[in-house]
Structure formats: C-alpha cells, structure tokens
C-alpha cells in the first residue's frame, strides 16, 4: 500500500489485518489462524470461507487458544492467534510467557480491539495493561502499529520473523500517516517529523494526534520531533538517544501511563540520558465513556498532548 501523503480517510485496522493474513495465507500454506469464537470481531469471515481447514476455532477458551497456537507452531505452522486483546493477554498470560516466549514458539499473537476501543463496555474490556505486561516478558516482540500501512507491514514482518510476536490490532479509526520511511523494520522507530525543542514519542492510535499536536506547537515556534515507536520491545535505543538530545520528551500511548511505552522510554533515559519527561496515558480503571471521549478526557488527543508539551517546556500557550 502506498501512502506518501496523509489521507483524510479513517481506517479500521482490523480490516487491514484480515486482508493481510489472507494474502499471506494464499502464498504460504503454513499460515493458520486460531480464534476464540472471535471470527466476526477479528473480521476473519472471508479467511474462514477461503481457508476453512486453516481456521482453528477453539471456542471461548483463551488459555487453550494460546497453547494450541504454540502446538501448531511445533507442527510447522505459522499461527496467528487472534482474540480481543483484553482476554488474549490477561487470561492467557502464563501461556504467552511459557508456551510462546520461554519456549520460543513461532506464534503471532494478535490483540484485537486493543486499548480502550470497547469504550463504554468498561475496564473488563479495555486492554490498557497489555503493553506493560508483555514488555516484561523476555524474548517476546511487542508491536503497536499506528495506521493501516504499518499494521499490514507489521503482520508481514511478524510472519517472516522466527519467534513469538504480539501485535496490537486496533479498531479505533485512524488515518494513514505521512511516511518518511518506506520500509517497516521490527525494532526500528520512524521519525515522522524533525525538531529540536522536544520530542514526542508515540505509539499506535496516538501517533496521528501527536503529529497534530506538533503542528499546533510549530505555530507557536516550538519545533517538535515526532517519533512513531511501533516496536515497544525491543525498543529502538538510537531513536531514544536522539529524542533525549532535544532535552525534553513527551510519551503518548493508548494504554497505562506506567509500565508501557512511557515506562520503556523512562528506563532508558534514567540509565543513559536523564531528561525532563511527561508520560501520557491512562491512570488505571476508567470511568464510563466512549473510546473517543476517554482519549480526549485523559489528554491523549492533540490538545492534551500539546498542553503537556508546553507544560514540560515551561511555556505559556501562544494566544
């Protein structure tokens, strides 16, 4: 997919996920999908119709879903284990740790409708802890794609990579981002905008908000470096060093403020490049509200990100 320029259209990355896995499956018969009664919510109906033998539905049983995924990998398959991110990660955490990561099984874990996409359904259905949890597990790659192109490229890269990978697949509407690097590489950050006053390091659905914040700040004479940190683990330390060189970092993620992307950046900076930081994310169990309301209410859209940047730099908003 070419995406040289920003598009005003918004996309549901689950559509791109389903299309990409189907394309991969057509070219490689090792590709299979494992679901927990989540064919519809993973948008895999067409995959099932086209490759009925290669869609394994374990029913509502997440521990078994991940264990079966590891077994399919043992049997030579490349399983894409797809379920709502909240259940896939929390319910099957030990299977992710032991059967996938510790066993180095070639399993691709796809956390569907991650973050606060389920909005009003509440904290049981929010998956805001997933990145913090999974980042703590050794030998597990964690990717949070920001847009349709990156979702597709991350899925292809995961299929090519021999080892366990977790990918967030968001249903939150996001635009196609302007691209500065035509190639996606696991572990390599993407610098979407250069600037020397501060750096905003964002992941997933917050990246386009970070870009909009940077645009607003530019109007006030603040030059902002915007980094799309899609791979949260292992993290791109070269990109972090360059970000720290600006003297101020704001991190933004659709997840817990502690332990996730912000935590990863803070760990690096504390050890290698102490720098002023603000970590934007959710505080914990969230009040009732739509996904869009939650993002705005907790300051994860452009106005909130710009405000945090100004506060960090100690400057008042330009009138």
């Amino acid at each position: 997919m070419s995406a040289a320029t920003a598009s005003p259209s918004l996309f549901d990355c689950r559509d791109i996920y389903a299309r990409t896995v189907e394309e991969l499956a057509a070219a490689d018969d090792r590709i299979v999908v494992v679901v927990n009664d989540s064919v519809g919510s993973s948008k895999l109906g067409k995959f099932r119709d086209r490759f009925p033998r290669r869609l394994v539905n374990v029913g509502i049983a997440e521990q078994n879903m991940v264990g079966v995924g590891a077994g399919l990998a043992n049997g030579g398959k490349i399983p894409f284990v797809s379920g709502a991110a909240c259940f896939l990660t929390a319910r099957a955490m030990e299977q992710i740790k032991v059967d996938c990561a510790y066993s180095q099984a070639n399993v691709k874990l796809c956390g569907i409708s991650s973050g606060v996409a389920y909005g009003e359904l509440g904290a049981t259905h929010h998956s805001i802890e997933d990145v913090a949890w999974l980042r703590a597990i050794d030998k597990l790659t964690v990717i949070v794609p920001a847009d349709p192109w990156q979702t597709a490229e991350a899925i292809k890269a995961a299929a090519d990579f021999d080892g366990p990978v977790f990918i967030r697949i968001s249903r939150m509407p996001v635009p196609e981002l302007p691209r500065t690097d035509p190639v996606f590489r696991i572990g390599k950050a993407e610098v979407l905008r250069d600037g020397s006053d501060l750096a905003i390091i964002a992941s997933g659905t917050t990246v386009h908000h970070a870009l909009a914040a940077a645009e607003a700040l530019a109007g006030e004479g603040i030059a902002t470096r915007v980094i799309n940190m899609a791979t949260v683990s292992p993290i791109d330390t070269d990109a972090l060093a360059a970000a720290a060189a600006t003297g101020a970092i704001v991190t933004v993620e659709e997840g817990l403020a502690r332990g996730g992307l912000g935590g990863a950046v803070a760990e690096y900076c504390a050890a290698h490049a102490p720098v002023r930081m603000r970590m934007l994310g959710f505080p914990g169990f969230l009040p009732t509200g739509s996904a869009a309301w939650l993002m705005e209410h907790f300051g994860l859209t452009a106005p909130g990100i710009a405000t945090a940047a100004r506060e960090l730099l100690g400057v008042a908003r330009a009138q």
Partner: protein
Amino acid sequence: MSNSEELLGTAAAPADRDARVSNVRNRANWMRRRLLKMIFDAGQGHPGGDLSATDVVATLYFDILRIDPTNPAAPNRDRFVLSKGHCTGALYSALAGAGFFPEAELDTYLKPESRLNGHPNRVYLPGVETNTGPLGHGFPVATGIAIAGQIDQADYRVFVLTGDGELQEGSMWEAAMLAGHRGLGNLTLVVDRNRLQQGAGTEETNAIEPLADKWRAFGWDVVELDGHDHGALIDAFDAAAAPRDKPRCIIAHTFKGQGVSFMRDQAGWHHGVPNAAQYAQAIAELEAEMAS
C-alpha cells in the same frame, strides 16, 4: 504397530512381543536407577512422580515413539509432551538413554548452567517439544500439535503425559473439550493416576473421579490399565488398536515411588531426597529386580 525402521522405535526395539516387553522392562529399571542417582547427587528432585511415570515414559521412548535423536526436529516425528513438567528425572533419563544427549550429561542435573533444568526446556535440550513446569500447559500444546497433524493429514502421533492432580487445572478441560470435538485420533493422553498430589490424595483435595466417565463425556476413547505393566502399555499405545476418529485417554493406575519399597505410595516422596543409606537401599532393590 506405530514403529518404522528408519526411526528409533523399531531400530532399537525387538519385534517379538515378549522381547519388546523385556526390553522396556530393562530400560525402565535403568531409568529408575539413573534418575535416583541424579536426584541423590543434585540433592533435589521429584522422585515420587518420576518413579510413577517411568514405565509409561520408558514404553514410549524405547518401543513406541518414531523419533530420531540425530534429527530431533524431523517434521514427521512422533511427539511426546511431558505436561507434568516436574518429572524431569524420568524425561531426562529417557532422552539420554534414547541418545538425544550423552548419558554423562545427566550428572549435570540442576547444576549451574546445565541444560538439564528443573523443568524441561526445548531451547536448551534437543528432544523437548515445549517448555513445561506450570501445570496445565503441555496438554493444550500437544492438542495444537495434533491439530497441525490433522490439518496436514500427517501420520505422526502425539503423546502427552499428565499428572492426575494436574487435571484440577481448567486449561486441561479446555483442551480435552477441543480434542474430543475435533476427533483427534492422532492424540493419546496418559494420566499418571498415582492418586497423590503434592500435599495429599487427589480425592481428598479436589476429587477428579469419576475420571473415565469424564473423558468419555468429552468424546474420548478410554483405556484403563496398570501403568507399571509394560505389555499392557505397549498394547494400549498400539496405533492399530485405537479408534481413528477419537483421541485416546489411557488412565494408567500407578504408584508414586514405584520400584523402591519405602517410597512406594508415599506422598512425602513427591519431592523428597534419599539420604545415602536410603539411596543405597533403593539401588540395591532395583538391582535385585533386574536380577530376578
């Protein structure tokens, strides 16, 4: 019979049934002596469960499994998954005896940086299919392997050994339900029914009976046998005897600590370690059994 000439099973095992039984009996006796030495030298281990599982593991590794230690990742190999991952004494002695690594390496058991960890690790050690240790993991993974074989219409078989206490884990029944639903005829599960879990009996802790009825209700073929009877195990593992459209559950009635008089059926030997006199007595008993 599931053996084929190019892989270990028949290459090492004789064709005549009496000779097969005798071969497995000798191997099991060797495993028992070897795993007790490992535990005695290391000063820790799980002898109770190792000894209850030894005859099942010996029958698989030295008679049934089509595996090749020189090509441990062969795509069409039979798989054995130790779901009760703490019983590494039985697994490691079998893998060494089958030639997956030198027997002398057994002396490194539990030592710093040994490949022989307290729970099996496939990244360290050839012949291990998946890392286990926390209960309730190996069986779902084995089910996934069997599904891969079903998708590919491959002719390899998948064997998994679970503890009986392990059946208190919910993930076991998730896998049981799926394997029955999919009719995984290439999957054989053995329950090491020694009736004892770490602290007490299974039935006084959280009863798993009526066990055979549970498996049948989940769509499985069920065989009950004496888990220390090598001939019965060989017959129950025979591919020709098993239904092709159902997974098979073998409830192997066993005793913790089997083969050593003072360990037999004693919960205290779950992870007990023999002292020098006890070790000498255990070895003497096993040597006497070999001579009989």
